């Protein structure tokens, strides 16, 4: 540390000149902040692509019969929408963007444990994305199985399954590398004095997520590889004609893909746990309960995959067990919600945009979570399985939960990342439109599902017409809201007023460094003496 030259220590990481220039200075940078930004720009690009596909689906559903596309196109579009949104947007979402950018700063480190590996995982991510999306432009057309690639259709269909499945496999690698990196970073690089229970909650949730990433992803990796083997070599792993068992595929797939939901939601909960105390100007209620419930979700989340398969054929014992465990996993999530709400009790709240996102997160997350309990009950599940209700439920969790937390996080940390303030009035307008659009889009789908409208159909009977129109209009409102938000953020990143170090009065370490941070974040590694949310 002694040989460090102090002359340029106040140059922001964005202006810092290294070995490379221009674009290369970014795509070859091992700085955790630049890698985080690379992820941010790539994820936003894929997100907008996914949103456009979603809008196209809703447009098709505005009227019964063929409206704008034929059934095959619709199948391809919902598959691509799922693959892009799950594997390219929400799984890497918060951990890869804000985890990379904020984790080292929040625990008082200069970088992640393996900066080169970190850059490599972004490259692997881009490589996987290119492979997955190349299926669009090859003869045979994009895959049409849905993002779950269920056997045996996934090796019978003539569409381009191979690139999509291989792409998802490669993306899993990227996810594992990030997970390993974060776990080692958290174990080895916490600032002196930062004991485990003085660590802020966002790093805690990243820790839980990283464990799920490394424990669950290999299973889906090998499963997807088996699909590849099935298509190339005709081995018969999941082909009943050759003695294979398609239900086994579903088990292996959901052993990963259910915990994957917690990969997505845990960091979202972490971001909310940062935003709420800051804008409540109050220490978070039940810090330890939140930590323990994070670990409990990560743990119990492994044992509930069967609830995706209640109608696929399992023994009665298995059904009861999975249903019971599903109810069990709701408890730690509910504990968190109670903690967040209790934090707001008797607080002097700053009504800023990140807080609006956090508050609306609570609203949509509760609807999503409670509808999840309805689906976890066996008898109800039989009625609701594969209906629009399921689609509404997981969009409330994944888009409502994770998406709202992402939006909250990007507004919360915007001054730190870009060193400028966003336009609060526009940001709030965008939030209101997004929130209204979101609920108009997805709430009718609950009613449609209960009255029996199946998911993944491009057509429906006349009696479902009304709610579908409402839903499609909601998708437009949401889209306009999204446009306002993105426009505001891009404009503010260039022209917004210069942000101070700590615009919101946050207590965690990222608010003690420059906005934007310098290359090495801290001039001196801080010594931590207090807990993370010490407002006393």
């Amino acid at each position, binding site marked *: 540390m002694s040989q460090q030259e102090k002359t340029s220590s106040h*140059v922001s990481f964005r202006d810092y000149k290294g070995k490379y220039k221009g674009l290369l200075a970014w795509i070859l940078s091992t700085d955790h902040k630049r890698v985080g930004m690379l992820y941010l720009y790539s994820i936003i690009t894929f997100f907008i692509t996914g949103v456009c596909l979603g809008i196209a689906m809703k447009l098709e559903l505005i009227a019964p019969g063929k409206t704008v596309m034929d059934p095959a196109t619709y199948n391809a579009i919902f598959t691509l929408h799922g693959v892009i949104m799950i594997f390219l947007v929400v799984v890497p979402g918060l951990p890869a963007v804000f985890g990379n950018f904020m984790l080292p700063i929040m625990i008082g480190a200069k970088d992640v*444990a393996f900066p080169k590996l970190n850059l490599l995982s972004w490259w692997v991510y881009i490589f996987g994305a290119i492979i997955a999306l190349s299926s669009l432009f090859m003869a045979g057309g994009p895959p049409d199985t849905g993002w779950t690639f269920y056997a045996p259709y996934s090796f019978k269909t003539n569409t381009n399954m191979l690139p999509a499945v291989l792409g998802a496999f490669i993306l899993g690698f990227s996810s594992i590398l990030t997970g*390993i990196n974060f776990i*080692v970073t958290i174990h080895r690089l916490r600032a002196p004095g930062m004991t485990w229970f003085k660590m802020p909650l966002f790093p805690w949730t990243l820790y839980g997520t990283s464990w799920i990433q490394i424990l669950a992803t290999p299973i889906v990796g090998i499963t997807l590889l088996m699909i590849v083997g099935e298509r190339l*070599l005709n*081995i*018969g792993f999941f082909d009943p004609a050759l*003695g*294979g*068992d398609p239900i086994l595929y579903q088990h292996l797939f959901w052993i990963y893909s259910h915990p994957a939901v917690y990969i997505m939601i845990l960091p979202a909960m972490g971001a909310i746990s940062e935003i709420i105390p800051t804008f409540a100007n109050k220490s978070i209620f039940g810090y330890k309960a939140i930590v323990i419930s994070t670990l409990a979700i990560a743990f119990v989340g492994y044992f509930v995959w069967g609830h995706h398969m209640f109608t696929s054929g399992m023994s009665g014992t298995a059904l009861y067990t999975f249903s019971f465990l599903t109810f069990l996993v709701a408890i730690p999530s509910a504990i968190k919600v109670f903690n967040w709400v209790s934090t707001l009790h008797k607080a002097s709240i700053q009504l800023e945009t990140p807080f609006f996102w956090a508050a609306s997160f609570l609203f949509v997350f509760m609807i999503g979570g409670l509808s999840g309990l309805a689906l976890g009950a066996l008898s109800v599940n039989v009625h609701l399985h594969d209906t629009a209700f399921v689609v509404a439920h997981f969009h409330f969790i994944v888009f409502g939960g994770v998406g709202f937390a992402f939006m909250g996080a990007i507004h919360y940390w915007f001054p730190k990342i870009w060193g400028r303030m966003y336009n609060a009035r526009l940001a709030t307008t965008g939030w209101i439109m997004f929130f209204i659009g979101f609920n108009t889009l997805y709430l009718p789908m609950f009613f449609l599902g209960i009255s029996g409208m199946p998911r993944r159909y491009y057509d429906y009977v006349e009696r479902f017409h009304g709610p579908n129109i409402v839903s499609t209009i909601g998708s437009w409102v949401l889209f306009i809201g999204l446009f306002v938000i993105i426009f505001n953020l891009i404009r503010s990143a260039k022209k917004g007023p210069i942000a101070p170090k700590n615009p919101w009065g946050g207590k965690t370490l990222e608010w003690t460094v420059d906005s934007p941070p310098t290359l090495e974040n801290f001039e001196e590694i801080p010594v931590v003496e207090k807990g993370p949310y010490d407002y006393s």
Partner: protein
Amino acid sequence: MDTSIIVEDEHRDDEGSKLGMWLFIFTELLLFAGLFIVYGVYRYLNPEAFHLAAQQLSVSVGTINTIILLISSATIAMASSSIRLKNKKLTLILLISTLVMALIFMVNKYFEWSGKIHHGFFPSSDTLHTLGNGDTLFFGLYFFMTGLHALHILVGVVLITIVVVRVSKNTLTDENPVLLDNSGLYWHLVDLIWIFLFPLFYLLT
């Protein structure tokens, strides 16, 4: 703008690197765990066919390969010790003998595989289809699992080759042996997976 270059201090954390390697090894084990489950399920469903199909594999070739891998694990572990004793020559000898043994393993594998393919035991062959589903699954799993294992051997060979080059150039010495240690850990993993594959395919007849 300021063009002076910040001298970044060298961050080195051998403990951290090893922790990362152990986590990675854990993910690799889980990768194979998925296949072990699939193997278990299909063995349970087709006990007779798996029993007969396994007799087609040569126990002696499998045993030889097991012994080769076990010795190669020993030699790379000894290389980790000898580099700490600053004995560069011995380290190189040990590493290269590990590589040679990996090569012998692959040659054995090649002859084993081509023998099976010659007899018509390969995925989607006519011979297997006439034999039935159990045999199809057994040989499908055999090629898939040993193939994936062989891929890991190749990755290990690349890793150890890098270590050999760095040792001979003196960029990897007793000061910074962590890359050698981690390659050794990876090689033990490859060995460990084989120790599970060997009884599953060769011995359980």
